[in-house]
């Protein structure tokens, strides 16, 4: 097994949960997780080693996620499906059965872009603050402080 394959084996479930928390769509999360490996394999020669392979895989994941969200915004049918899915799955899907899970995910959905990214990368992608800083083009401290502040707000919400 080569280094890319090892890195992918290590982060694959984390990539999947990162997509799932953002999209609420198991199938889509599955597809995007596979796309990450496909893109990585095709573009391995562009990997400069400035970050770890794992971080690089997550930067590819962010790229795919943003592309997907952008395409959905353009396509009204996709947008409608998305709304339906959120409504339907939040009650039916097994993985959303726990109320705490639903509350946390719903809270994260309401966040503006940088904190939302910090939370999903940390909680589901299991990235370090240094990596999150790198991925978002911000400092490690920014990631750390944003995470703890947002978590505090989330905890307040859960206690209400």
């Amino acid at each position, binding site marked *: 097994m080569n280094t890319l394959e090892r890195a992918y084996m290590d982060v694959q479930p984390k990539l999947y949960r990162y997509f799932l928390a953002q999209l609420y769509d198991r199938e889509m999360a599955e597809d995007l997780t596979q796309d990450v490996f496909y893109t990585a394999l095709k573009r391995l020669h562009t990997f400069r080693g400035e970050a770890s392979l794992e971080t690089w895989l997550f930067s590819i994941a962010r790229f795919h996620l943003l592309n997907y969200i952008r395409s959905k915004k353009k396509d009204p049918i996709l947008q409608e499906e998305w709304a339906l899915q959120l409504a339907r799955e939040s009650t039916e899907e097994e993985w959303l059965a726990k109320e705490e899970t639903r509350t946390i995910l719903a809270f994260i959905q309401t966040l503006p872009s940088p904190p939302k990214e910090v939370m999903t990368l940390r909680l589901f992608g299991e990235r370090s603050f240094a990596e999150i800083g790198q991925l978002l083009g911000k400092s490690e401290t920014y990631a750390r402080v944003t995470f703890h502040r947002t978590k*505090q707000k989330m905890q307040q919400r859960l206690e209400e």
Partner: protein
Amino acid sequence: MNRCAIVEDLLPLYVDNLLQEETKQWVEEHLPQCPSCQTALAQMEEVITVDLPNPNEEAAKTIKKVTRQMKRYEFILVTLAFLLAMRTTIIPELTFNGLWAYALLGGLLYAFYRTWLPPIVLSFVPSFLYYVQDDFGDASFTEIIISVASMGTIYTLLSLIGAFIAYAWIQALQKEEQR
């Protein structure tokens, strides 16, 4: 100045034990006297666990599947390059077809790999290999190599033109997307 505001700012670093000893003591002096900062600290220290499921497909399976698919694409591209080299060797004049075919090959290769090396290598090497086998009469070895290499260079240039068109296209599309 309100001490709570400062403590609240310091809490994220306090939780991760990143404060200097002195600052840490200062925060710890404040905490017992202040219920609101205590709550904030407790909320920050709370461990969040959200159990999301695992993907259905195992990573090893994805790796196998995608690698196989990649190899298939690469095989098609290499075959295309060799077929093209074979064709242009049989009809050595630079026909219009030969021209655009190399540009197309270069464009395809660039779009697939997003780098310049494959369009160069895959237009030069196959045509070189085919030409070398040609009948050159009693020309010397160097003469053969020079003539073969110059043909290969022409094809490579054409392929690079195609690659550049693909590059410009991709750049334009990305700019469009960003808007």
